[in-house]
Structure formats: structure tokens, C-alpha cells
């Protein structure tokens, strides 16, 4: 096609007309945090010291840059920097270009919107608690009742109302999770609910995922057939090797571990290899066994492990003195367990640690995976609703556990009366107000405020007040330490580890809230 080639003419001479403009530095200055100049209002970049010689700068887009102490001081002072340093800072939204225009502004806005999209989509996680009955009598469990206690079971009329209420949410993708107690003890209610929801969904056409959180002790072949046919996933609890698990989860036969492992095997054989996932709860007894716990998950063939701390309230709160541990103790345990997970990955066994994945998702990914406990404003009542056996609706799992302890102040009304106004319920609005990251003293100045969110239910449980000073909550103390630790890991990571962390950071199937089984 000769017409497209122009050669040999004077057009080939090209004079470079335009060189980059040199300007005095427009880097931002530190006033408590970095503030953008008002004429290029890109929001504020914030700094946090991770170690004596490492500071992380986090920009309004959620991008980060590691600095030395001198580098941080220079950034704060707005000192002159060379062109390439300036380019890197601009591209991370750490500092603003003097020429930033509509493109950059729209880009930042779209980045921030992507981080918030899961909050905007409406209630996507619906937790049904058919019964509080459970075969375990775990020392840290907030709620469960014994097998012969039939008073703590949902009425069929309430169950039906709950199934209908789920569709009030506009979210196109819904997760329906059965919790307890052990919901398998009332398999009949699970069947009733799944069938009713599926029936309605023939018209609604939502993308619905069912999860049953259970010890799996009662799991049998006919249940497996039903779960396979209706694409129901199972979520169970494994706290570690048999001795630890059985110590944490007493049953009359002292065989909780063996029966759960048998349930896992049955589910894998009859429903599918990926039909069951497991969660662990860290008790004081766990602290000495980080490697053993991870190894147990590998041995059982799980591709994920979730190193979860103990809830600090409910029954667990009462037992804090016996069961509890400090944030420092948890961090030592968590890091040792994560190191073991990374060891397995280096040695060819692929296993993902879910808590770090949630944090890396916040830190590294453009897209938020929508983990409820770190949403801001809170996901309680906005992304999650709990339909409890007692006939009432609660904004989250923890709220119904508080109710077991006699505090029903977070109740959103009866299941039978749920309507579309529930997201504007005074309690939900109060929870939102108590978790607006830009307005809470402490959160607004925190470097991690794009990734985190105050947990007002947690504050309420700990102090009886959802506006309790954020920094004094266990939620805040733990997450500050976790983010610090994860940023240090990023800074020191090998290329292979960075690849792995990015893989973990991608939104995956950890949107389902951990079970209370």
C-alpha cells in the first residue's frame, strides 16, 4: 500500500520543539499530614513511619511509596527533587503535577470509586441463622446452645419472610450464608430456604451463592446430594492439629476434629474437591503452634487458610482472661503463621492466607474485594444483614451475638416487617455516622484510612458506645499493626513474593463472612 508510506521528503526532518518545563518543586508540605496545594486539590497524602529508617507515603488513590527518613523529610519540606523522582511521585498521586488537568482528576476519581464500589452496590451478604443448636461447646463461642435446646430455632414463617426479604436488595450478586449454631442440625430449614430462594430467583435472575457454615458432624450423603444439586458451598472450622482443635472445640466424644475431617472428606467425595473451605480461630492455646496449624491445613489439602483472631466480645469477652491475648501476641503468631504459608509457597505448595489477601487487596489492587469488616463506612446494615433465629434482623453477625448477651440495641426490627427502608433504619444510619473515615478523629489523619474503616459494632461491644475513641479499639490497634507489618513485607519482598502478593490481592472468593460455627 504505497500510499501510506511517505519517505525521502523534507518531512523527515523533525526539530524538537518542546522540552520538559523545569519548575520549582510543587511537592506537598506536611501539616500533620501532607496537604495538596489548594489550586491542585488532589487530596492529601499521608505518611507513616514503619521502622526507624522506613516511612510509607500513602496517596489519595491508595498508592504507596517507601521513603527513607530523609526522603520523607524532604517530601514534607517540598524540597527540590530530580525529574524522575518527581515523575514517580506524580504517577502515584503522592504529589500533584503543576500541570495536572482533567485526565488526572478523572483518573483519581475513578480509582477512588473502584475502591468504594462494593459499598455502593447494596446488601450482598445475607446471613440466615436457622438455629443456635450446636454439638460443640466451644469455650470462646458467643452464642451456641446444646443439641436438646430446641427453643433457639427460627420459625418457618420467619424463615420464609427472610428468603423474600433478601430480594429487596438491588445487588446483582447475592451470597446467602447459613450460620448457627450448626445449621446442619436443621437441614430441613436449609432445604426450605434454598428452594424458596431458587423459586423466586427464576424471576429475579440474580447471581446467588449459597454457603453453609457448619462443623459438618451431621453431614450425610443425602445432604451432599442436595448441596451438589443446588450448588451450595460448605464452610467449616479447623483450628489446627487434632489436639488443639479438640481442646478448643469440646464435644462429649472428644472427637470434634475427627468428625469434621470425616465431613470434609465426604463433601469432597460427593460434592466436589472445592466444595468445602475452612477457617481457624486463634485462641491463646493456638499461639504456640503457628507452623503446626498451617501444616495441618496443607496436610488436609486446603488451598486457603484464614488466620483469624478471636472476637473480643460476647462469650469470648467474658472469657478474655482465660482465652484472650494481646494484639502484640496475635501479631507474633500471625507473622509466624504467614511466614510458614510463604515457606510452603516457596517450596511448591500453593496456599493462600486469607487475612493477608484482604489486606493486600486493599493495598495493591485497583478493585476492592469488599471485605465487610474493613469497609468504610461500615458494611454492617449496608452490605450485610443477619436474619436471626429469634425473628429479628441485625446489621451484622456481631450484633446478633450482642443480643445473646442481653444488648438488643442494634436490632433493626422483626424479620416479618423488613422492607426496603431498612438501609435507612436509625441504627444503620448511626452505624454509618460512626464509621465515616473522613469525619472520625483519628481515622481522618490515619495513613491507612483508605483501606480501613472503624468498626462501630466492635466499639459498641467493647465500650458500650459506637463513638468510642477509635484508637482505643482492638479493631484499630490490630489493623494498624497488620497494615504496618504488610507494608514492611512489601518493602522487603522478593520478586517472587511480590508476584504472590499481587495474586492474593486480586478479588477472589473471600467475600463471605467467617462463620461462627
Amino acid at each position, binding site marked *: 500500500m504505497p500510499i*501510506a508510506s511517505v519517505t525521502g521528503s523534507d518531512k523527515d526532518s*523533525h526539530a*524538537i520543539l518542546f522540552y520538559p*518545563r523545569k519548575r520549582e518543586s510543587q511537592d506537598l508540605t506536611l501539616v500533620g499530614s501532607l496537604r495538596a496545594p489548594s489550586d491542585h486539590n488532589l487530596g492529601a497524602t499521608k505518611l507513616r513511619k514503619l521502622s526507624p529508617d522506613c516511612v510509607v507515603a500513602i496517596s489519595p488513590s491508595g498508592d504507596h511509596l517507601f521513603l527513607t527518613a530523609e526522603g520523607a523529610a524532604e517530601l514534607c519540606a517540598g524540597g527540590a527533587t530530580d525529574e524522575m523522582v518527581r*515523575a514517580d511521585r506524580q504517577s502515584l498521586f503522592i504529589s500533584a503535577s503543576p500541570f495536572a488537568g482533567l485526565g488526572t482528576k478523572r483518573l483519581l476519581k475513578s480509582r477512588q470509586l473502584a475502591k468504594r464500589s462494593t459499598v455502593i452496590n447494596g446488601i450482598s451478604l445475607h446471613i440466615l441463622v436457622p438455629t443456635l443448636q450446636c454439638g460443640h461447646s466451644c469455650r470462646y463461642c458467643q452464642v451456641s446452645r446444646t443439641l436438646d435446646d430446641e427453643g433457639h430455632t427460627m420459625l418457618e414463617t420467619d424463615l420464609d419472610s427472610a428468603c423474600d426479604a433478601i430480594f429487596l436488595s438491588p445487588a446483582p450478586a447475592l451470597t446467602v450464608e447459613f450460620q448457627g449454631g450448626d445449621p446442619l442440625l436443621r437441614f430441613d430449614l436449609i432445604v426450605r430456604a434454598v428452594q424458596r430462594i431458587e423459586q423466586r430467583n427464576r424471576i429475579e435472575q440474580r447471581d446467588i451463592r449459597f454457603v453453609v457454615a457448619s462443623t459438618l458432624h451431621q453431614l450425610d450423603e443425602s445432604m451432599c446430594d442436595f448441596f451438589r444439586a443446588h450448588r451450595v458451598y460448605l464452610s467449616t472450622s479447623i483450628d489446627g492439629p487434632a489436639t488443639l482443635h479438640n481442646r478448643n472445640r469440646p464435644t462429649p466424644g472428644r472427637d470434634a476434629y475427627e468428625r469434621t475431617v470425616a465431613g470434609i472428606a465426604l463433601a469432597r467425595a460427593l460434592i466436589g474437591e472445592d466444595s468445602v473451605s475452612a477457617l481457624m480461630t486463634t485462641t491463646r492455646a493456638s499461639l504456640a503452634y503457628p507452623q503446626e496449624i498451617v501444616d495441618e491445613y496443607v496436610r488436609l489439602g486446603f488451598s486457603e487458610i484464614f488466620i483469624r483472631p478471636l472476637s473480643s466480645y460476647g462469650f469470648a469477652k467474658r472469657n478474655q482472661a482465660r482465652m484472650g491475648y494481646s494484639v502484640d501476641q496475635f501479631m507474633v503468631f500471625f507473622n509466624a503463621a504467614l511466614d510458614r504459608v510463604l515457606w510452603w509457597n516457596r517450596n511448591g505448595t500453593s496456599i493462600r492466607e486469607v487475612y493477608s489477601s484482604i489486606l493486600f487487596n486493599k493495598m495493591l489492587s485497583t478493585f476492592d474485594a469488599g471485605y465487610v469488616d474493613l469497609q468504610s463506612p461500615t458494611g454492617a446494615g449496608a452490605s450485610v444483614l443477619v436474619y436471626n433465629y429469634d425473628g429479628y434482623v441485625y446489621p451484622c453477625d456481631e450484633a446478633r451475638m450482642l443480643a445473646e448477651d442481653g444488648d438488643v440495641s442494634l436490632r433493626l426490627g422483626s424479620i416479618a416487617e423488613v422492607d426496603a427502608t431498612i438501609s435507612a433504619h436509625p441504627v444503620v444510619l448511626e452505624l454509618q455516622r460512626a464509621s465515616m473515615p473522613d469525619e472520625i478523629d483519628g481515622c481522618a489523619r490515619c495513613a491507612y484510612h483508605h483501606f480501613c474503616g472503624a468498626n462501630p459494632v466492635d466499639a459498641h461491644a467493647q465500650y458500650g458506645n459506637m463513638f468510642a475513641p477509635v484508637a482505643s479499639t482492638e479493631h484499630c490497634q490490630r489493623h494498624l499493626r497488620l497494615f504496618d507489618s504488610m507494608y514492611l513485607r512489601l518493602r522487603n519482598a522478593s520478586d517472587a513474593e511480590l508476584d504472590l502478593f499481587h495474586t492474593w490481592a486480586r478479588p477472589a472468593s473471600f467475600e463471605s463472612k467467617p462463620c461462627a460455627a
Partner: protein
Amino acid sequence: MVEFDTLAHCWSPDIQFLVKATDQVQRQRIIDLASKGLDNVRWIDGAHVEVGDVVLPAPGLSRADVVYRAGDIHHSLFLTNRCNSYCVMCSQPPTAHDDAWLQEEALDIVRHIEDSPNCIGLTGGEPLLLGTRLRDIIGLLQVVHPETRIEVLTNGRLFSNPQLADDMLVDLRAGIKWLVPLYGHADFLHDFVVQSPGAFEQTLDGLLTLQDYAQSIQLRIVLIKPVLEHLVQLCEFIGRNLPFVQEVALMSCEPIGFALANRALTEVDLLAWSETLRAASRILQRYRVHHLYMNAPLCALPQELWPYAHRSISDWKQVYKPACDGCVVKSRCAGLFAWHSKGWTPAAVRPFEETKNE
């Protein structure tokens, strides 16, 4: 051009037909048809034109340019020589004069293509300078050749004009990919390469607009020195900020046009940048951004990046060197631009021999 035997079948009044006539009898039949009033039929015979080609006769001369070769794999329509950027390595240096005839010609070519190609590129210059006339050309292509994929090579800057963006993109049928260059992760880096202050902001704006209209985007990065120097950061920028693009094309520079005038900036030995390319590929993989290398022979790329190499040089401008004859990977190699001899090759050409292990 059509076969003599098929004329009766494919004739229509609004198309100009050239009939391949190899003997005197056939030629006389065409002349007779024309004299009876069938004024859109002529005969042709020549070695360099094939059935299905579109030919543009030079007025008053017994000569015609083939403007569309049915046998080619890569097809493109050159829509304008005007541009709002002035890139240091431009292979098609822009001119300022009005060239509306190029768009008329493009419309004619589209009407005259007999068998719809798999893909056709719309190129310039900057096609968005044509405004709604570009939409007309795309519209005609989609009517006449509904199965053909369309690729528009544009710097995207004018999409920062909401009215133009809306005129171009609203209700646009699927099947179009926008090929948009990005040369830096900060304004002054990109603006220097395209020699246009403000271009980075406009292109970013344009990319976000394309995303708003759910358009398919290929980002294009030309591997010249001022780009390679910060390629890794550019890929980070893309991974974090532009993960919606369908792919990123990393392209070796065509040694032609302004690239020859700015050799100090544009001539690189790609092999010497292997570490940079490895790191860039790793970053893009990390963010799951699909990417490919274009215009580079395999001997210019580290071997682990060969799976990303694409045979991209249009067939009419692709050649090999004599030394390539013995190379065992020649058949999957992009080769060289025909005009490399006036410029340079992306790296010293090294034929690969069969190894005993393979």
C-alpha cells in the same frame, strides 16, 4: 477487480468494475458492454493486480495504484495526514494541508472491497481530527462489512472533548478497538515524546472516556530511549490505573520518518534493554494486563519473552535478512521493516540454530 466470468453475477450500478481480461475476445466483450451504456465496467490486465484488489487509476495515465490487496493479511485505510501531535519517532510525519480527498477515497475503497477482511486498520495522522467524518467511515464499514473488526489508531486526545466523544462513541456498534499510544507515567515524559504540552492529560481523559463508553482499548508503547528509561514505571502506572485496557502492545520503533531525524532518541539495541523488558513484562503479568511485543524480531527479545512476541509487521513492509535463512524460528518471527536498511535493526540479527536438546 473481478473475473470475467463473475461480472454478470456481481455487477451493480454503484460500483466501478475492472474485469480481468486476458485475451482479445474478452477485452472486446467488455468494450462492447461499455459502448452499450454499461459505463462502470472496464478491462485490465497486469501482473501486479489480483482478483478482489481495489485499484485507483491515475487520471490520464495508463497506470493504476493498488490501494487494497485482497491477498494481504493486514489492511489499513490511511485517512488523513494531519495530526495534533508531533512525535519524535513519527513514522508518518504529519502535514497541515486539507486532505478531505483521502476520506472520500477511503469511502470508495470500503465500497469496492469485495470480500470483507477479518480486520481493517484506520490510520493517519490523527483520525479523530476528522470528527463525524470518521464516524461516517466506520458506519459505512459496519454496514458493508459487518463481520470486519475495525482498529483505529488514535492518540485519543480529542476524546477529551465531550461533544466529539459523544458524536463518535454513542451507540457505536461493537467490534472496534482503539489503539492509543502512551509514552510516560507522568505528564512531562509523555508530552516530550509526543512534543505536545498537555497531551498526557488529554490522552488520560480520552482513555477514561473510552472506558465510559465500554470501548476496547489497546495501549501502544514505542520502545525508544526516553520511553525505555522509565518503561517499568509506565507499566506499573498502567497496571494500577488503566487495568481496563484489553492489552498493551510494546512496539519496536519503525526506522522511518522522524525516527531517522531523531536517531539519538529512537535508535536502540533492544537486546541491551533485555532486563527492562523482562521487568516490564513481569509487572504487566502481575497486574494481569495482557501484553505483546510487536515489530521486534525474536533475536531482539530475551527468549522467555518469545511467547509474547507477535508477528505484527504488515506483510507488505516485512522482510528478513539473508542471515535469517538458516534461522530455525524464522517462520514465527516478526522479521524486519523493509526500510531497516536505511535505518537500523532493533538488535544485531542473530539466526538461531537447532540445538541438540530440541
